[in-house]
């Protein structure tokens, strides 16, 4: 009953002082809502960008053939440098920074199963390629393996969309089946597990097929690779690996390792590092904005508490004159602050959550990602605002409650 009566008293007061309560609540609401949104969109954008990097593969660089742009040891410029599979093995044997390396060829081919016919990009690759590029086989299937490569087996690994297109409803039985690739029979050994982010420099992996590079080269009498994909060991950077590869091939083909024309290289880790730094900065910015918002919210709450100090001190004086104990006055303030903070905070959280739900429906997921509610962060915000409000509210209240009633009545 004790507590119940305090609550009755407390709601009486709250209802009477609607404007003040609403203003304070709004301050808390606003602070919580903006921080919830900042956290949610920050998380979403960061994840979207990192994911698009990961979909292509982590720590990889891609090397294309080129033409020397510098003279070197008496050799003229303008020579073509075109690495072969042997060169890839040559690099693999000598380099210390490389975790995986594989050649890559590709062109459009006709894929046919039954009456389904489609023209798709088919790549000649090595087994390592699948790991580097995150081409993960579905359950009960596999990627191209070393035996396929050594024995020039006509096997194919299909992107999930191509598989769907060729096999339709019977896609679950596709593994082991034969399809025709440019008129020749190939056995399907695997289907790619759907990737959330599967675009790369050659188009979407889900719409491609992958065959052993040895088969590819035999089919088109191809000696050279379109490009080479290499993945560095985690302790090295893409740049160090690039320099090592250029040095090794430079020795073999006699070109200046600093010659940017000899081979063109795309270091995806550069972008990755940039993104990582960018998002560190971005997170820092978010934290700063969040802290500023909290401080503003705290000042707002403190201000409101101070604005009403006069009124409140008189109210406290009246209540003490009527027999309120110090503890019940303080309890009232604590309840009030907690209630206002909780309601304002929860409303802010809910409103933020609503926006987080609505915004993705309007599209743009590739860039801003899926904003995700950071529940703990948001709760933290509410708690901090509550503490700020409590401190802001409790000190004037305590000061007033420590006065003699007549002093509180006459203070202003």
């Amino acid at each position, binding site marked *: *009953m004790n507590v119940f009566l305090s609550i009755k008293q407390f709601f009486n007061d709250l209802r009477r002082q609607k404007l003040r309560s609403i203003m304070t609540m709004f301050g808390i609401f606003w602070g919580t809502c903006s921080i919830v949104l900042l956290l949610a969109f920050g998380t979403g954008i960061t994840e979207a960008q990192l994911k698009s990097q990961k979909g292509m593969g982590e720590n990889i660089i891609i090397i294309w053939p080129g033409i020397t742009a510098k003279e070197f040891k008496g050799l003229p410029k303008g020579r073509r440098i075109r690495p072969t599979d042997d060169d890839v093995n040559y690099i693999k044997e000598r380099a210390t920074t490389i975790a995986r390396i594989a050649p890559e060829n590709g062109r459009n081919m006709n894929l046919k199963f039954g009456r389904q016919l489609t023209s798709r990009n088919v790549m000649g690759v090595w087994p390592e390629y699948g790991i580097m590029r995150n081409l993960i086989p579905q359950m009960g299937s596999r990627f191209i393996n070393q035996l396929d490569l050594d024995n020039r087996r006509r096997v194919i690994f299909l992107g999930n969309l191509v598989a769907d297109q060729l096999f339709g409803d019977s896609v679950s039985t596709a593994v082991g089946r034969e399809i025709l690739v440019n008129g020749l029979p190939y056995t399907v050994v695997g289907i790619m597990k759907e990737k959330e982010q599967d675009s790369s420099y050659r188009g979407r992996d889900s719409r491609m097929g992958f065959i052993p590079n040895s088969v590819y080269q035999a089919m088109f009498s191809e000696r050279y690779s379109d490009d080479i994909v290499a993945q560095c060991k985690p302790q090295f950077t893409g740049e160090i690996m690039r320099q090592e590869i250029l040095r090794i091939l430079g020795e073999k083909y006699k070109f200046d390792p600093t010659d940017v024309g000899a081979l063109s290289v795309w270091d995806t880790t550069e972008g990755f590092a940039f993104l990582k730094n960018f998002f560190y900065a971005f997170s820092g910015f978010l934290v700063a904005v969040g802290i500023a918002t909290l401080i503003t919210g705290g000042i707002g709450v403190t201000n409101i508490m101070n604005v009403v100090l006069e009124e409140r001190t008189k109210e406290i004086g*009246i209540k003490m004159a009527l*027999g309120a104990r110090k503890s019940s006055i303080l309890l009232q303030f604590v309840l009030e602050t907690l209630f206002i903070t909780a309601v304002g905070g929860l409303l802010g959280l809910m409103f933020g959550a609503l926006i987080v739900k609505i915004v993705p429906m309007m599209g743009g997921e590739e860039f801003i990602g899926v904003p995700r509610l950071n529940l703990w962060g948001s709760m933290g915000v509410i708690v901090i605002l509550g503490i700020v409000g409590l401190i802001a509210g409790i000190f004037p209240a305590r000061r007033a409650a420590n006065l003699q009633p007549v*002093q509180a009545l006459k203070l202003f």
Partner: protein
Amino acid sequence: MAHNVIYMKQVKKRYQTGQVFFDALRGIDLRVEQGELIAVVGPSGSGKSTLMNIMGCLDVPTGGVYKLDDKVVNTLTSNQLADIRNKKIGFVFQAFNLLPYATAYENVEVPLLFARVSGKKRRERVHELLARVGLADKMANKPTEMSGGEMQRVAIARALANEPDIILADEPTGNLDSKSGGAIVKLFEELHDSGKTIVMITHDKSIAERAQRVVRLKDGLNDTNGDLS
């Protein structure tokens, strides 16, 4: 000899403003018996309000002894003082001191809440009190929606909420015109007739006439009507 509800001996109050000290009460000797009606008079600044606030436990003396029902008040804890203000003494201010945002009903309810009177009893009591001061129809009015006389009657109803033995009033008609003041005076007379002990700062003739004693204050000292032998 009748029971002393209020007993003061050499009660002093010294105010400090910065470095300046001021003795508002310089040694009050006063005794009030159960059921008495006492009028306190004196020029402005003589310390009447100061005395009344100490009597009502709204302030503490800086010297002397104050006994309420034979208990020394000086040494009580703040919670004990709060309970005295809540149940034993009803205080009526010149400036009404109603909670500005609360209705008449809610204002009268406040002391009952602090006394932890439960719902149904509380409601009955508030209705009864407001009816007694003639404001049964103004229950939902806020102070801004009432006249001065009505506000003071709400304040009286509130002072009576927990049936205190003692009613203290500091110029309860000071802010009122003579007609509404008359109604308030009549209320106090009724209270006196019903056996309450009343101490009131007033210049009202009819109260002074009814009063057992009129205590005169001057420069923080009272005359012999304090009746302390």
